């Protein structure tokens, strides 16, 4: 693995590793680690750093939905145009063009189910190119961005062993 790949892997594991932590794990000098991170940021490889949140443990709980969108395109409008328009809404947390039975997979977040429904029906559905929306409310999250939820400590190894 190159230094870039190694640091990227570690930051994906935990973006809060300090420069010193990263230096120790990679055997690089702290200045080298900082230089690699800066390079990854300026190259646009690292787009941001966020916390992975288990909303069920937060008051008030956030409501999230996975929304399938079907669209029809005309000569003037392409997928990118529709995507650009949708991505501007702060409620939209994720937006991807996908292959298969529908066109866009959209992730929406709001304070309540009614707020999310209202957003879909008042802001998304009226977009002229959108022909169909199917909303799936997220009931329970088991894993987000590689992080498994649940009560974590399922290490049932003996605490002391040979």
């Amino acid at each position, binding site marked *: 693995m190159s230094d870039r790949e190694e640091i990227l892997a570690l930051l994906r594991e935990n973006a809060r590793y300090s420069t010193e932590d990263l230096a*120790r794990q990679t055997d690089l000098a702290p200045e080298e680690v900082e230089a690699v991170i800066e390079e990854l940021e300026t190259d646009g490889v690292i787009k941001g750093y966020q916390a992975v949140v288990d909303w069920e443990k937060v008051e008030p709980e956030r409501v999230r939905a996975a929304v399938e969108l079907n669209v029809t395109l005309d000569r003037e409008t392409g997928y990118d145009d529709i995507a650009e328009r949708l991505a501007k809404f702060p409620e939209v947390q994720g937006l991807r063009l996908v292959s298969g039975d529908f066109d866009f997979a959209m992730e929406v977040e709001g304070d309540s189910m009614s707020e999310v429904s209202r957003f879909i029906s008042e802001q998304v559905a009226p977009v002229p190119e959108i022909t169909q929306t199917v909303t799936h409310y997220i009931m329970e999250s088991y894993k987000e961005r590689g992080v498994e939820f649940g009560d974590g400590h399922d290490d049932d190894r003996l605490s002391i*062993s040979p």
Partner: protein
Amino acid sequence: MTFEPSERVAGVPPSGIRRFFEIAEEYDDIISLGVGEPDFAPPWAARDAAIASLERGQTSYTANRGMRELRERIAVDADEKYGLSYDPDEEVIVTSGASEAVDLAFRAFLDPGDSVAVAQPCYISYMPGVQFAGADVVDVPTRAADEFKLTREALEASGAAEADALVMCYPNNPTGATMTRAELEPVAAFAREHDLLVFSDEIYSELSYEHDHASIATLPGMRERTVVFNGFSKAYAMTGLRLGYALAPADAVDAMNRIHQYTMLSAPTTAQHAAVEALDSCGDEVREMRAQYDRRRNFVLSRFEEMGIDCFPAAGAFYAFPECPWADSDEFAEALIEEERVAVVPGNVFGAGGEGHLRVSYATSLGDLKEAMARIESFIT
């Protein structure tokens, strides 16, 4: 009528690990750096192979020495990785963990009154194993100043020249020490000169971070006097599947098999299927696990350095063996659990030369390691 343990059993003290295990069990919020097994699950392909073998109902005994297919894979693997060349039909025996292989060798080749030099600190089962076989242990302490490598001087000073056999383990549990081929030369020469059998536990062979693993059996004149132990517990994270093996000249395997065929019959069948797959297709997972251990090792070693705790640069297995900040490692380990809820194992548990040290396992997530090291730091300052 009472169940009075036999003299051999009564003569073996309870394991020092047991006591710490009991202390650690009193708390449920412990970060344990006391574990001697991987925190990874076995590679999926190996698990799938085990599941598939169960679905097909392949649960009968196998050949005593293990499935032919597995023995063949083991022989190829040992040859390719370490230059150990053994005939799968006569010179390989598959056992229920490396533990069973160690026990078979002791019982097959030791007589009451024989003496066995054991390089220490070491895995806790060797000394009792020798005693169960009726033989006597000669302590061969290794020193932090030698990075816990076995030296000719240590062998000479301990009287190993008079012994019948030598037990050694590199990469080492608990010290994390490794030995290069050049460093093994004088040990091999000593064994040849004094006609010692060598029992070489190489179960951590895949976890050597600084140099390629070297097996003492590949040195001149050593193959015929060495039994090599290895297994799937560490490299493939398959501890609970209980699968190991021994490599040795045909006569030796034959003698070990004589015990094995009456006591164990054959190693677990499901595990043998998993092991075939592990050797066939799980090299990438092994490399990935090794890379992760290596990162954790760097982390732990540099944290000890920051704390001003002396720790030689452990280069193998998944243990660091720092000096204990207190004179008595038992007291330190006990206080550390009670006050900071961090479990480590005191070095004296592992035999001569271990006192004054702690075994710190890094087979635990980096997040937990980071927290545990911070607690150790606050404990000692």
